């Protein structure tokens, strides 16, 4: 029940984003991914969740036990908050536990349509999906964007609790987020050197 990444290199649209990234996380660990815009935080999280294939290197992670919360919130605007929650609880085959929702203060919003939510309310609904999924590995891409102070605190507590129960959390963020004893990965240190380009069209001369 661990995540192990070894010498990972990933590129997007032929552009190498980072290379030689390695880390290992075991039960209860948290990893805070940092780095300036465009350094590949989102890319790393997508690779971990299996949406992007690595160029080289290996990722060992239980795909079935992972959930990814991207910049988008996976909300259907034509469904109410309640209906959105019900759908995900069915997809993950897990009951809609009230305790899982309270941190995000969704109760007053249950009958509102997805399209009518404010930016932060959307984010809260998006994060509720993560809590519902019951997955062991949480991959959260800038989860605190648009969240107000109170909910940010609640999210930190939820993460802390998840780690206590043996979960693993990978979080990318530009903002202060309180993850006790978290490992840190600064992606700005892993810019691939121009020499180790894997693009076959740069090999040799024509």
């Amino acid at each position: 029940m661990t995540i192990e990444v070894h010498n990972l290199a990933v590129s997007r649209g032929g552009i190498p984003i980072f290379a030689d990234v390695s880390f290992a996380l075991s039960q209860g660990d948290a990893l805070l991914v940092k780095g300036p815009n465009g350094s590949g935080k989102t890319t790393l999280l997508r690779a971990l969740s299996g949406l992007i294939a690595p160029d080289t290197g290996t990722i060992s992670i239980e795909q079935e036990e992972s959930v990814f919360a991207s910049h988008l919130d996976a909300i259907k605007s034509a469904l109410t908050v309640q209906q959105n929650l019900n759908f995900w609880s069915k997809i993950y085959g897990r009951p809609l536990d009230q305790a899982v929702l309270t941190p995000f203060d969704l109760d007053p919003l249950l009958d509102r349509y997805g399209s009518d939510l404010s930016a932060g309310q959307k984010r809260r609904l998006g994060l509720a999906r993560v809590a519902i999924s019951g997955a062991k590995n949480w991959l959260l891409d800038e989860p605190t964007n648009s969240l107000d102070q109170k909910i940010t605190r609640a999210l930190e507590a939820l993460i802390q609790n998840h780690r206590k129960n043996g979960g693993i959390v990978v979080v990318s963020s530009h903002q202060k987020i309180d993850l006790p004893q978290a490992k840190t990965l600064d992606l700005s240190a892993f810019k691939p050197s121009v020499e180790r380009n894997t693009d076959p069209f740069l090999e040799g001369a024509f």
Partner: protein
Amino acid sequence: MASIWQYANPAKFMATTARFMGPLWVLSIATLATGLIWGFFFTPDDFKQGSTVKIIYLHVPSAMMAINAWIMMLVASLIWLIRRHHVSALAAKAAAPIGVTFTLIAMATGAVWGKPMWGTYWAWDPRLTSFMILLIFYFGYIALWEALEDKDLAADLTSILCMVGSVFALLSRYAVQFWSQGLHQGTSIPLVTGERQVDDVFFIPLLFAMGGFILLFITLLLLRTRTAIRLRRIQALKAKET
């Protein structure tokens, strides 16, 4: 051990093909010119059709190669999907515009031929209809390549389209038989049995024209693949800068 897959490396491919391009050009233009000039100037007129029959030297080879270009694309697509050789994907991409041109030549010459023979430029005959469908498939394939910015993704998706499209093109070919009785004549050059109904005077220049079209296809294919490889390298170099 030298394997044929080594040519899937772009640099190797460029180096190897560079040596063939010159001779291939000469050979293909010469063969094509021989076939077309011979056919046009030095064959007798048909007793029924008069000189109109000479359209055959353009029509038949281009029709044949229009289909073969698609088959070649299918093979290249499968190679890309299975072995992920970039050159193969680019070769498939390079073949499409050539295929379109050959399809258009077959249809244009056929249309001109149809007027005196059938009294119309166009008829919804099974064979002509199949060519119309083929043309649309070519357009769709090219449009999908153009629409996608990420070239590896484009290679994946166009290859899948080519695969599925081939199956449905065959199905359509079969289906149109039920829908329309043909005007177009059947094949009169059964290569397998060798019993042909065409005289040597017409047939030998036709063979040259066919050979010319085949060679021209190969030449253009290599040239366009080389262009595509260069463009990819330009893209990669630009990406490296940033």
